């Protein structure tokens, strides 16, 4: 029993689980921020009165949403880093890390866009008409009247996108960002197969601890911030 525990302890001394999770959290944070910005721009394009912008927004969402994330991530690394020799930092590890963020952001922006559009659908048409009637041009109506209400109506679906992004951040392994949970867990299990269930259990619980509060928080927020009509 003592051997078992000290052996398990050694495993987690060798492989720093917290550091691994920290990488996922950082990936999620930055990719989430960029995805939110890009997704908002896409949503504005999709509700704009200009047909060409609507077309571009729709095309982006339909293409990106239907491409597997691993393919986008692999493309970021193989095509951009190795073929085109693009770099986002002189340090290769940092460069990989940043490309992983870009790939995650590009992919999840399409889901953010659709979440915001579902929020726009909760805003009655009369709100936009009233905004136009006082002389607000499209961008001001969107920024000041429609989006603030749409975001409140989109908190729950945005929460789902965030949870998907957290979990998908493990696909960064495809972009050679190694110090994150999926790669660490794989290596840990490979070298300590006798602790397979325990190692798996620790990572699974770690993910639950990360994901469950996000779900609870967004449910709570979406009720609290709901626009009263």
């Amino acid at each position: 029993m003592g051997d078992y525990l000290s052996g398990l302890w050694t495993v987690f001394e060798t492989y720093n689980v917290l550091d691994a999770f920290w990488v996922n959290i950082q990936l999620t944070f930055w990719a989430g921020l960029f995805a939110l910005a890009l997704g908002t721009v896409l949503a504005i394009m999709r509700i704009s009165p200009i047909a060409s912008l609507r077309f571009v927004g729709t095309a982006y969402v339909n293409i990106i949403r239907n491409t597997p994330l691993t393919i986008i991530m692999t493309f970021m690394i193989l095509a951009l880093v190795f073929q085109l020799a693009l770099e986002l930092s002189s340090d290769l590890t940092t460069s990989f890390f940043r490309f992983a963020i870009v790939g995650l952001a590009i992919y999840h922006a399409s889901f953010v866009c659709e979440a915001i559009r579902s929020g726009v659908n909760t805003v009655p048409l009369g709100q936009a008409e009233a905004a136009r009637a006082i002389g607000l041009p499209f961008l001001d109506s969107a920024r000041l009247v429609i989006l603030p209400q749409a975001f409140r109506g989109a908190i729950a679906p945005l929460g789902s996108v965030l949870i998907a992004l957290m979990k998908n951040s493990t696909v960064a392994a495809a972009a050679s960002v190694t110090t994150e949970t999926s790669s660490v867990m794989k290596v840990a299990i490979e070298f300590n197969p006798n602790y397979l269930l325990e190692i798996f259990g620790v990572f699974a619980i770690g993910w639950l601890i990360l994901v469950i509060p996000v779900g609870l928080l967004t449910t709570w927020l979406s009720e609290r911030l709901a626009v009263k009509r």
Partner: protein
Amino acid sequence: MDTVTTDDAPTSPRDLGDALVELKGVNKHFGALHVLQNIELTVHQGEVVVVIGPSGSGKSTLCRAINRLETIDDGEITVDGTPLPEEGRALAHLRADVGMVFQSFNLFAHKTVLDNVTLGPRKVRRVPKAQAESEAMALLERVGVDSQAHKMPAQLSGGQQQRVAIARALAMRPKVMLFDEPTSALDPEMVNEVLDVMVSLAREGMTMIVVTHEMGFARKAADRVVFMADGQIVEEAEPDEFFTNPQSTRARDFLSKILSH
């Protein structure tokens, strides 16, 4: 045709200014439905025109066409001599000069009453915040809801919300105000508080186009009643003349229906 033209006879007892809103040969279709048919209408500076007619006759569409919330197929609409711009900034500028009050109030649900009224002046007219707020408070006082300034729209009664909506439109200092059935969504006991505000606006010389079935308002405040049916202007007359002696059979039918209860 039992249309009565009033083109050459000035129908109003008041002195009217220049033409402010002009519709010439305006047509609009919704698919196969010819919802506005050859509409000719001139509203003068300071004039109050009540538009009346059966449901589905095109009154809302007419109202919405005047600030281009609906596009038209052909014809011309001018406001203060300027034809309605197609889109973009120029259209936004024109809309700022045309106040609109909706049946369903449409107050910005995420903003306080005060912010509802200051949003247009601040973002469209670039009025500084403090000035916009003091002007907004004066307007809210005028429509009798200044004590509600810091509440959210959903906390107000329908009548209060509609008075805020009127204040919001007035804050832009519009040249003309459009009202599309402003009291139809209200509980009966709140109708008068809104009509009173509208009557006082009319007395102060505001140019108004009002879609309503409130005959009391029409008699008290209107210079002219325009009767619409099936997308056409069928009859125009002074209120007393129209209500006591309608010329067209359709207007007679319609009035008998709204008077019979």
